[in-house]
């Protein structure tokens, strides 16, 4: 596990927790099946993010990521905010454990989704409240080798057909 001190700080005292009742944009990503779910609320003034809040269901990394993305995005222009990548969030947190890069690093996705929601609303597009989409869908109950696509046993150390190491963070 071994979280960095910055991750632990943001996990223990997360910044900008909550909802904005009259938010201009709402982004929701993840689902609890995968382990994490995140909602980001933004208030926009001019072309800047004047206020931002989040709610997250997830592990220590997911909460720290949520807190950090709100810090990174606050006061930025929409254009600047759209350029923040998930990897920037991980970097600002002093790194994340490899298996968490895949599962919990949803911050930028949630932020971008909130900005898109704001732009859609502004352009008059009627937006139904989106259900969080699974970000790594199950492919039935079976596992497949990502290299040769053959069906393999769960948690195989390597593929017995093509010999390639199976990625650790692969949730099939």
């Amino acid at each position, binding site marked *: 596990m071994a979280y960095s001190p910055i991750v632990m700080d943001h996990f223990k005292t997360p910044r900008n927790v909550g909802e904005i009742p009259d938010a201009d944009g709402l982004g929701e990503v993840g689902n*609890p099946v995968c382990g994490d779910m995140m909602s980001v609320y933004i208030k926009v003034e001019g072309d800047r993010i004047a206020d931002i809040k989040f709610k997250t269901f997830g592990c220590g990394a997911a909460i720290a990521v949520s807190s950090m993305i709100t810090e990174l995005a606050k006061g930025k222009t929409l254009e600047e905010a759209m350029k923040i990548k998930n990897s920037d969030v991980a970097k600002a947190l002093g790194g994340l454990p490899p298996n968490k890069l895949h599962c919990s690093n949803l911050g930028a996705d949630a932020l971008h989704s909130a900005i898109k929601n704001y732009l859609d609303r502004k352009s008059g597009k009627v937006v139904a409240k989106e259900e969080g989409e699974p970000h790594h869908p199950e492919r039935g109950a079976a596992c497949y080798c990502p290299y040769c696509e053959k069906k393999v046993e769960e*948690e195989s150390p390597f593929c017995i057909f093509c010999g390639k190491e199976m990625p650790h963070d692969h949730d099939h």
Partner: protein
Amino acid sequence: MGFIYLDHQSGTPLHPKVQEAMIQQIQTIFGNPSSDHQVGQPAAAVLEKARAQTAALINANPPEIVFTSGGTESNNQAIKGVAIGLREKGRHIITSNIEHKSVLNSLRTLRLLDYRVTSLDVDQYGSVDPGAVEKAITPETILISVMLANNEIGTIEPIAKIAEIAKKHKIVMHTDAVAATGNIPVDVQELGVNLLSLAANQFYGPSGVGALYIRKGTPVWPLLDGGTQENKRRAGTENLIGIVGLGAAAALAKEAIPARQARLRALKERLEQGIKARIPEIHVNGHPTLNLPHLLSVSVEYIEGESLMLMLDDEGIVVATRSACASGSLRASHVLIGTGMDFATAQGTLVFTLGEENTDAEIDRVLEVMPGIVQTLREMSPLYKKSPH
């Protein structure tokens, strides 16, 4: 100690008397038990003493005990050993959906070698139905492996009944008793099993050492090939210091189990009732009465277990979680899903495993701290809707 340790499942602290026995071993005896000289023979005596102590804990004969590197090896040895030993008889094995990974993944390997595996569903409490076991038997069935007690939810399985069925059909019966041994009485004669796995780190012995009980006449082929140690069942020079620790812990457990059981159950009751009274919308997992005295599994709605575990850790309270995020595989617990629990609820699961050194005051501290942490995380969760009252 500066923390409250409630994760004995992951490994118990060494009992002072076990420590003493191990230290004495390090200081006095270094010989190889296989050597027939004056240095080797005292080591052989120490080994056989530990074997007798371990056998006595489960009412076995000493020659039926094979020392291993722990529960995982014992389970691998039992399952793969019987599969190889009976390969001319058949290639079908029956197990349950909620076994430990060392059982499930041993069977995964056997599937690669063209064995067939029937994995039985469990009910909402995690109980295996002996009737379903009997129905799954085919003329090809060589082995049934069902755990004595589940390590995540604490449910005790009807092993004596299943073993009776196995015996009737002349099928080898293995039980993974790692979570049970040392915490409840375990008697291989009463259970009627051919094979039983146990590990020292579940009852105040060291990690990295365990045993497999092999009833005389059970066809178990060795996994580790080499010399003739351990009745030709497990080659390699013995881990004498660890084995001495296992023996000492087994001797202590044999005496302590009745009192240990009663005390741990009272502590668990205090914790369980306290959590139920203080935290709404939780589920207590496992069988309501047939369960381990020291294990409490609780699923907390709307929040994720790893963040709950980390916040408790920060308050000096050490527990385990069964959330997908905290597991190396990032998958929800196969045990909880096996009982029919939905993924989101399974994510919020904590497992408390209590031990001898825990006190009422420590449990009360958990009850004081945990509700606030749960509330903080719920307030942060998009799944949590405040109740209307």
